[in-house]
């Protein structure tokens, strides 16, 4: 199955940009989830759990998802119900975490990027087997 990576993590773009199709979102973790929701509504299928990782969604600013390319015949009616359910639950779950101030410390941001990249790598390893 062909897939692409949807991410707002620049380290994911650097790691996979030359070997995989990467769609970079210049925005927040929530923006990535909302973009994924729209793609799923257009027929794409989620290949990873959107709430992966124990770093909480109000803590890490990064999210990287593997998403299948939609079939040519796909339409809204054909949206994958499991993907719709998972992304819907994820967006709802993220809303219940309290908002925190935006992190600006570059070292801390880099640590979040490293962990996000590591977790995504485990999914890419499974997907590419």
């Amino acid at each position, binding site marked *: 199955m062909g897939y692409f990576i949807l991410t707002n993590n620049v380290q994911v773009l650097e790691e996979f940009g030359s070997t995989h199709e990467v769609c970079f979102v210049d925005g927040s973790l929530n923006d990535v989830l909302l973009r994924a929701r729209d793609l799923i509504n257009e027929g794409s299928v*989620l*290949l*990873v*759990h959107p*709430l*992966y*990782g*124990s*770093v*909480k969604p109000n*803590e*890490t600013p990064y999210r990287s998802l*593997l998403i299948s390319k939609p079939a040519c015949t796909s339409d809204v009616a054909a949206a994958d119900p499991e993907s719709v359910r*998972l992304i819907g*639950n*994820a967006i*709802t*779950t993220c809303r*219940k975490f*309290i908002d*925190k*101030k935006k*992190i600006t*410390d570059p*070292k*801390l941001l880099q*640590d*979040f990027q*490293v*962990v996000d990249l*590591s*977790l*995504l*790598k*485990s*999914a890419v390893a*499974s*997907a590419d087997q």
Partner: protein
Amino acid sequence: MRLEIGKINITDIRFAEESKIEKGVLFINPETLKPVVLEDEKIKDVVFDIAKPGESVRITPVKDVIEPRVKVEGKGGVFPGMVSKVETVGSGKTLALKGMAVVTAGKIVGFQEGIIDMTGVGAQYTPFSKTLNLCMVCEPVEGLKQHDYEKAVRMAGFRVAAKIGELARGLEADETCVYETTGIKEGIEKYPDLPRVGYVSMLQTQGLLHDTYVYGVDAKQIIPTIISPTEAMDGAIVSGNCVSACDKNPTYVHQNNPVIEDLFAQHGKTLNFVCQIITNENVYLADKERSSNMTAKLCRMLDLDGVIVTQEGFGNPDTDLIMNCKKIEAEGVKTVIVTDEYAGRDGKSQSLADADAAADAVVTGGNANEVVILPKLDKVIGMLDYVNKIAGASEDTLRADGTLEVELQVITGATNEMGFGTLSAR
């Protein structure tokens, strides 16, 4: 398999010239432990410290908690595949140093949580405020990458715990417990009228700071399999997971798994404890489908009547938990699931990120979002540098009077999903 656990009760830890255990007191010369840590050239220095129950001490950020044990009879050694050869463990005799733990600490990433308070409100929430803790804070060499630092600290903890465990070799146990499982056929013949019960143990397996190892193998690469629960007691399952402090399973909890303890206590009386099934919690959805399919199939093939399922973590693992529950129930095997909750600070939100009607028997370890105020303590082992950045904290966490306003999720073991805690409802 038959395993004897000989318990050596440790009543105090003191630094001394000679390392030994005498009359329940563990004497440790930190200078002799240092080379055990520094044999890994990735670690620049290590500082040992002792934290005792009731002291005004806060340990943070905690990476792992380990109980020192030594294998004195039977095959293999403790922590097989990590510090011992990959011989199958879980039979013979093992000595365990009770009442104490080795606690590894170090800031691997800037947002790492994990607080153990030895006194005050926080101490009531962590099981490790009741143990005498030999703490080791490891400093990495300059420029060491996070992956390498994590591994170095993880392995150093096992080496130190094994070294201390060796001090018990030759000692008489204060108490001995025997744990014995039977073969499938033997169990059916021995306990024909008792329900056949298994334990499905879900292991955290997502990537850096979120991993678990079985006989040295990264468990995200396994397919579900069965083990004797006594194998876990010899350290066949170890933790590389140190995010989400409240509901991670430190190595200590795998060694002293309360689900296994309680099932053994009922074994041959009200139930026949058949085996432990280990499975994973991968990020990739197809892996989840495969692992839950295999787990349900194993439950059916073993003709189990019921299983207890424990998970580790929140969010992604909730989906594995519900997949396991649904599919095992669909095979006609009853399930009880053990989890914790992220129900919001007011406790009114949906507790899990996934749910199903088949999950009709649930045990909870508590609400990780519950807010507590931790007092200012006199001494910190480790560092509080990033306490405002960790999960369950905020920019208002560190208050002017030195107290910390945090959610339970920052506290190591507070809402443990194997039930290794004391939270209950009234």
